[in-house]
């Protein structure tokens, strides 16, 4: 079997990142968009950990910070979403178009 090198992890991470990206730009549901962003950040973490294996633990710490950031973003984002939903009763991205021009 092939040796599993850094590249393999990077590929997986990139694919996950892209799937997240595709989700962000195609799905209508805001909640799912949030999830996709979480997925992207998680893919970044995978990248970092793959590199961390090459250089030392700094990458892991970085990943930890990104995870914390993801949590914070999720918390605030969902809070905003709820406030939004209260006023607009939708979480449909196509309907978030009050501001334009």
């Amino acid at each position, binding site marked *: 079997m092939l040796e599993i090198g850094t590249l393999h992890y990077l590929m997986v991470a990139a694919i996950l990142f892209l799937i997240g990206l595709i989700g962000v730009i195609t799905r209508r549901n805001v909640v799912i968009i949030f999830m996709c962003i979480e997925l992207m950040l998680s893919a970044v973490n995978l990248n970092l950990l793959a590199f961390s294996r090459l250089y030392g633990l700094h990458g*892991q710490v970085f990943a*930890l910070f990104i995870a914390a950031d993801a949590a914070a973003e999720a918390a605030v984002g969902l809070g905003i979403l709820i406030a939004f939903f209260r006023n607009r009763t939708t979480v449909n991205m196509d309907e978030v178009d009050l501001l334009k021009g």
Partner: protein
Amino acid sequence: MTPVATPFFFYFLSAVAIISALVMITKVNPVHSALALIVTLLASAGLYLMLYAPFMAGVQIVLYAGGILVMFLFVMMLVNIEHLYVEKMMNRQWVIALLAALVLGSLVLGALYKGAGSFPQQIVNHPEQTNSQEIGMLLYGPQTGYYMFPFEIASVLLLVAVVGAVVMAKRRV
């Protein structure tokens, strides 16, 4: 500790992660998507383990699968999910978006593939047993607490998130 059947686990976990990620973005019902995301995240946690990052794997499981996803589910309950089923899943631009993303993806993957030699081949093996401790030392160590200051800032960040969530969620006075 040498991992057993590394390639198999790698491909297996990767496949699980990717497939469930695809499932996530193709499910109409956000609850299904959320569950698929959990699977992806758990699979990546497995990959983390393979990368000698047990602490991060744990964080991944606890924080994401345990914390964030539950929050997502709660929110889905709060926002009216019934009518979400019946609506269209994709927005109007999805074809062009998909094409753009595929172009971008092929460029990114191509770049990674071509640039694979840019990274050192030598792997620094960290003992897994002391992984958490060493991370702790990087975060708080008296002489090695290199990331202490960012860590403090991260704590502020989380505080802000709390404040933000409260501000956003509380009713008008």
